[in-house]
């Protein structure tokens, strides 16, 4: 199992519609709208690295997405 964060930069004015589209993508665990350098942080849970590529591709196809940065999780401590 592979977990990853996809950090997304958006073009102004498309965030709401983009989030609605992202909520429909399978393997997306969490969507956070953030204030800072990025606009949206998505947490993804996939079986294989190949599937991560597919999810990233689907996100990149959404209207308004300017740039994505993928961070693959190697180790995690959580409550």
């Amino acid at each position, binding site marked *: 199992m592979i977990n990853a964060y996809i950090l997304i930069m958006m073009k102004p004015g498309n965030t709401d519609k983009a989030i609605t589209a992202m909520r429909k993508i399978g393997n997306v665990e969490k969507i956070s709208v953030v204030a800072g*350098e*990025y606009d949206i942080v998505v947490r993804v849970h996939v079986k294989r690295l190949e599937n991560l590529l597919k999810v990233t591709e689907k996100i990149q196809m959404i209207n308004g997405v300017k740039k994505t940065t993928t*961070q*693959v999780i190697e180790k*995690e401590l959580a*409550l």
Partner: protein
Amino acid sequence: MRIRRKYLFYALAFTSAIIAAAVSAIDAKIINDVITDDPWAFGVSCFVVGTFVTLIIVLIFSIPLKGKSLGSKIIDPSFRRLRLVRKEELKYHTLAGIGNAFLTIGYFFLLSMFGDPSAVLPFSQIVILYLILMESIVEKNIPTLSEIQSSLIVTFGAILVSISLTGTLTLESMAIVFLVINPAWVLFSIYQRKLKLLKIDKRPNDALNIRFWNVVFACIFVVIMVNIYDLFIGSSHFLAGITASITHFGWVALTMAVTFFSYVFYIRALGIGKASVTQAVRASTVLFAIPFSLLLAYLNIIPPFSTDPVMLLIKVIGTTLVILGIVSFALNLVKAYVFINVKTGVPIEETMKKLWNIRGVTRVTATAGPYDFIVKIRTRTLVKGYEQIIRKIEEIEAIEEYKWESVLKEWEDI
């Protein structure tokens, strides 16, 4: 389904509270009309019948439906089917079971000793403060000042709403509430939360199995304790309980079936929020119990609702405090991501441990990509976020740079 985690938490805790209010109404009917002479018998029958009823419910929810189970579709997405207790769960189930057993025994001891425990039972709401104390001692996510304030508001509000002019307030009854019922509830609540946070077969643990096994373990401890009590006192409460389980099966099965759903939602809420906050929101049971009490009073099952203006005023103040406390919980929460780059030459594990030890950090992930770590933060105010988190991050020498990204809104797969 992806919904906002906060909404899910409140939906679960309030659903649990509404069902718990219905349970208290059914219990009032049973104690007044069905099992009037021996509250111990009611206690034993609750667990004996409860084990059977809970087993049937969980088996029904285990029925496969389009590749998933019925329970996973309508109650808890983590549920697959009824299963045996795993080795790693055994300790937690034993402690939660002991908690549930002592809680029940304490309550029935109050009933058998004082008849009407209405005057002393409101003090069981102070369990919220016990939970805060426990979390401060044993858990990483120590409650913040605003959480303590909100908890105090809810606790005092709940005491005022449930306050009663009937019944007697004695040192012994207060001792049972403060030294038996409240600590037992803490045990019950903290260990059920630990169970919910466990991963079983790499999946989150499910509330249905947790509830079923809690009833089984509590039943075993209750049977042992009542038998010991019978042996010392020379009574026959256990036999009376078994008889009541057969003669009043319908009513007891109804209360335990409804209780099952209340606790399943409570356990799910425990898996999202802190035990103290979950308990505080669930204290709204006292508000939801008002319409049920009015109905029972109308049906002459319990004494008429007090129309004394002073009592009504106290209850209105209590209701306002409970609502205010819960609203302030809901509004005061800041979440953020911190993206971190570290210097070379320092072991990753060491930095990870230092980040994890910062109060307010709920998740530390070492990642491959432009950032070395992504840290998730949860704090009640931005000021605290700076004072307690940023300052601590800056103290870690290995950290080269970091970026704080406040979360404005969040959806989560449930």
